[in-house]
Every structure is written in structure tokens, then in C-alpha cells.
């Protein structure tokens, strides 16, 4: 035992001697950007078919099955070209709905939520003139890409990664956090995990946003819509 201890001590000394610090000096480097930085954002709608301008997000009715009892996720025929420059730490852009808004046409105004467990949910497409309520919403999704996508897969069930649900400012669990952030100073957000951790796409100025909706039990002659999809630019 004594011999072993001696060997260990000797080894310890060798290690110590082989990397001896004689003197050291430390400085602080610091730079403060108290007033600089820029936050700019723009979104332009375009048709997926020919990239011409569009004024509303639409779906092709012929692509939606009437009476289907299972949810059919369909991509919108329109996408948004996003342009952002965010060089301010606090800068970001939120995306959310305001389906209860009374400032627009009442056809797609939601006055009654649907329920997901105990949460009151107002987001998605609202069945025209229904005022909302269970069975009268088509949940909406979006995804952001750094390149254009000819056939976007917006199904959040079979291909969850990168697909995000729209949320409404009147949802009972609504918080302005990563779940409703589209882009921040680190770039466009691709996904948010269950803990709220965001994953960014490669940082670039332009992003492409695709939309989807889950249709179920659709009756011929009805329409679905939303009055108020809002990009909120946060500068401070």
C-alpha cells in the first residue's frame, strides 16, 4: 500500500511540473451598443402557382373533401415572402390571430371558443357565421423555409417538425413568447419544442411562409375564414 501511494504522489508531481504557470495578467474587453440596431419586417403574399401577387390566403375548395370525418391537412394556394432585418437584441416579430376582433367583418368573427382540454381556443379558420364553438373551427398551421417549396407539407400530425399552429391572442394559454415568434435577431424560427426552446433556420433576410389548415366534416356551401392575422413587430 505504501509503495502504491508513493507512486501516486510521484505521478502527481510530474503532472504539476509539466505545465507550470509563472505569471498571468487578465484584462476586460467590453463593447456596449446602447442605441444601435434595426428592426424591420415586411410580408408580401404570393400565389404558389405562378408567384404573382395575392391579397388573401386562400385554399382550393376542390382540393377539400366534403363530409370527411377525419382531418385533412391542406396547404393554402398562397404563401408569404417575409423580409426582415433585426440587429437589435430585443427585436422580434410575433404572429398571432385576433378572431374575436370586432373591427372587421363579422362573418368570421369568433365569439365562442373551442376547447382543447380546459383551454379555450379561438385560433384557426372559423366557420362562416358560426361565431365559433366546438366543431366550427379548422385549425391552421404555418411553416417557414429559407427556400421556396413547391409542395409544402404542412401536416403537423404526420410530419410534425417545423410545422407550427396558429394561436390566437384570446386563447386562454396565450403568451407572447417563442411559440408565436416568427423571427428574431437570430433568424427565422423553424421549430419550438415542448419547453419553449426555439430552433432557428440559417440566418438570412428572406423567409418563405406556407400556410395550412385541417379540414374535417366540411359541408358543401359553407366557408371558413379568419379576419385578423397579425404580424407584430417588437422593437424594444
Amino acid at each position, binding site marked *: 500500500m505504501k509503495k502504491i501511494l508513493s507512486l501516486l504522489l510521484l505521478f502527481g508531481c510530474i503532472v504539476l511540473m509539466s505545465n507550470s504557470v509563472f505569471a498571468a495578467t487578465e484584462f*476586460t474587453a467590453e463593447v456596449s*451598443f446602447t442605441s444601435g440596431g434595426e428592426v424591420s419586417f415586411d410580408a408580401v403574399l404570393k400565389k404558389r402557382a405562378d408567384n404573382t401577387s395575392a391579397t388573401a390566403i386562400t385554399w382550393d375548395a376542390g382540393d377539400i373533401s366534403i363530409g370527411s370525418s377525419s382531418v385533412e391537412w391542406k396547404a393554402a394556394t398562397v404563401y408569404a415572402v417575409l423580409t426582415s432585418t433585426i440587429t*437589435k437584441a430585443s427585436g422580434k416579430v410575433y404572429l398571432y390571430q385576433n378572431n374575436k376582433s370586432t373591427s372587421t367583418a363579422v362573418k368570421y368573427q369568433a365569439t365562442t371558443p373551442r376547447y382543447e382540454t380546459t383551454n379555450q381556443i379561438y385560433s384557426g379558420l372559423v366557420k362562416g357565421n358560426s361565431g365559433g364553438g366546438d366543431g366550427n373551427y379548422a385549425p391552421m398551421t404555418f411553416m417557414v423555409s429559407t427556400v421556396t417549396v413547391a409542395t409544402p407539407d404542412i401536416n403537423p400530425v404526420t410530419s410534425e417538425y417545423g410545422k407550427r399552429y396558429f394561436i390566437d391572442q384570446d386563447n386562454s394559454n396565450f403568451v407572447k413568447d417563442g411559440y408565436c415568434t416568427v423571427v428574431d435577431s437570430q433568424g427565422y424560427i423553424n421549430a419550438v419544442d415542448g419547453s419553449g426552446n426555439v430552433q432557428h433556420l440559417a440566418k438570412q433576410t428572406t423567409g418563405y411562409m406556407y400556410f395550412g389548415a385541417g379540414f374535417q366534416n366540411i359541408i358543401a356551401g359553407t366557408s371558413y375564414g379568419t379576419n385578423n392575422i397579425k404580424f407584430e413587430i417588437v422593437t424594444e
Partner: protein
Amino acid sequence: MNKKTKIILSAVVYLFMLAVVADNSFADNLADKYVYSLFNENFNGATQEAGTVYDNIKYNVWNGGGNSRPAVDIVADSTAKEGNKYYSCSISSTTNGWSGFCYTFVTGSSNVETRRDISAFSTLEFYIRPKTGDVSNIQVGVTDSADRTVSLSSLGVNNSSHTWQKCTINLTGLPSVNLINIKNTFLFITSNLTATFDLDSIVLKRSSSGSFDAALKNISDSSSTTKITWDETVLGSSWTAANQYIELSLDKFESDTWKIKIYTNNGSASKNGLVAVTDETKIIPMCWRISKNTLPNSDGDTLQIAQSGAPNYALYDKGKSATDPSYYPWFYMVDFAEHESGDYDVAWSYKGFHAAKDENYWGMMDMSKEGIYPKVYLGADFTNALGGLTYRANVKLELFNE
């Protein structure tokens, strides 16, 4: 007076002086330094510039009897023990008669030989690499009223080993020496010997330890300051040099393989730059370069930084070369926590200052007049810096033996 002294005194008649007049304005390194360089490219002292020696000391070489004068040439190649230069010596002596070389103290511009007190120094150290002949009986030491020497064999030199071998002369142990009254130091004398050998890293050292200092100075006027800074206007800019530089001063020679490393000391390997104070996930890359003199300099070196393309993304001097060169004087900063195993964080070592990546170390013998005080410059890439944030880093310089 012994025979050896007699011969040397007579040889003064034939003295061949390589030295020119010493520069009075030069610092009195002999009095100030703990490590006094006689031939060392990293320490101040009687450092040489093309055969010229400063600091009130001159270099002498002579031949005794009918022998040839020893050839003592400065050679630069990668085999140097220290820096990248060494003395290549050739002695051809077929008869008795003391030939040799030494450093002789003089009085300022008068160039008159004088006596100096070197009693503060405890050892005379150097490296020798025997090549041909038998160097065992070569005598090395100092001169006060007489020569006080010891043989290389007594210093443990193995003549059959053609590798660098360290010699340490205990000055107080030289027979009958009076160190307050020294005329010649590093006296190197031979008789009736034909041999070739190399010498390097010749220094006087005190018994007490000296110091390693790093002083932060403003580039604008070289005034002292306490923090490394950039102007707020650099937000969004690519690689930009800081407003300050760090001047290094080394007067401590504890190991022959000493190194001075530079790194951030921010606590984790990923924090190898300026870290946002309120969000430590946001980090601005930093870089550094070291120069033997202030930048920009007359060699065309500037503080403009550019990054080459894939696959190396190396950092170069954009002011010196508008396009991607093969010379990369800027190094990416690493953090202490990365435990860099190579030399990427080595700013200065016994091989010289780290002039560019890929083992480009340069000695600083040419800085004899100005003094050897290399400067470290810092830079950072603010392309992704964000307004509203303060970024901070702890930049550490460390002298150590690896």
C-alpha cells in the same frame, strides 16, 4: 598574471572589433534586467543587430599566435535552440595561442573599455551544439583583472553528442572572480584546437526571479488604460481591431520552453469571444495578432482584418494584402476551457513571437535599439452583434512552461 592573461592582453593589439559605438540612449539593461541577453532573441540586453551590439557593450573576436581568427557567424534556420538564429563558430588553430571572442563592457559613445558590476547575476547560461573537433577543453567565463574560466567538459558538455546542450556557469563559483569589476563576459577562448560548434541563448541571470508584465495601451497615443474597447459604431461591421493593444515585457526566464498564451477566460469553450452580458448565448468571435512593433508599421502591416474563404476561413491583413494571401497573422481567439493542445493560442515563446499561423515564429534580435516589447492587438467580428447589448470578455495572458 598567469600565462593565459598575458596572451590575451597582447592580443589586444590585434583586436578586431565588430562593434560600433554603443548607443547612450539605450536602456541600461545590465542594471535593470533580471535576464540579460548576450545572444537571445527574446530578452533585452546586449541584443545584436547585424553584428552591432548596444547597451554599452561590444563584441570582440581575436586570434592568438599564428592562428586564424575564429569565425563567428549568425545563422538563421529552424534548428536554432532559441528564436531562429544562432552563432555558428569555426576555430582553426594548429599552434598554441589563445584565440576567442567575448563581450566587453565599454563607456557609452566613447567606446572605452570599462568595468561593470555584474554581481547581481548568479549564472551565465548558454547552449552549445558540438559539430566537429573536440570542444571539451574550450574555456568559458569572464574577465576581471584576469580570466576566470571553466572548461566545457567541466560543464558537462558531451562532445560526441551533436545536439544542443545546456551549460550553466555559477558565476560566484568561478575561481577568484571579482564580479563587481568585470571587463569581459562570455569569454570564450581556445588554443591549438580545430573545431566547429554552434552557440545560442547566451544570458546572464539573477538568482531572484524577474517579471512578466502586460500593459494595456491606447493605440491613439500609447497612453495607459484599463479596458479593451471598440467604438459603438462598429455594430454590424466585420472584423475590426480594438482601440487598444497589449504591450508585453518579459524579464523572467524560468524554463527553456516557456510560452506566453493568450485566451479568453470566460468559463466555457464556446465562450471564446465577447459574450453578451445579459444573454450568454450571444457571442462575438474575437481574434488576436502579435507584432514586434506598433501597428501599422513601416513593413506595411496594418490593423485591417479580413477573412479568407472556404475551407480555411483564415484571418489575414487586408491592408497588406487585398486578396487572400498565404500569410495569416491573425488568430481566432480560443477560450481557456478549450484546452488548446496546439500552439494556436501561443502569442510568444522561446521560438519568438508568433508572427503567423503554421509555426511562423520570429525572433526579435532586430529590436535591439527599441527594446523587445512585442504588442498584442485584438479584433472582433461584429457582423452579428446586436444593438441594446453589452458584450464582455476576460482576456488573459499567461506565461508558463508546457
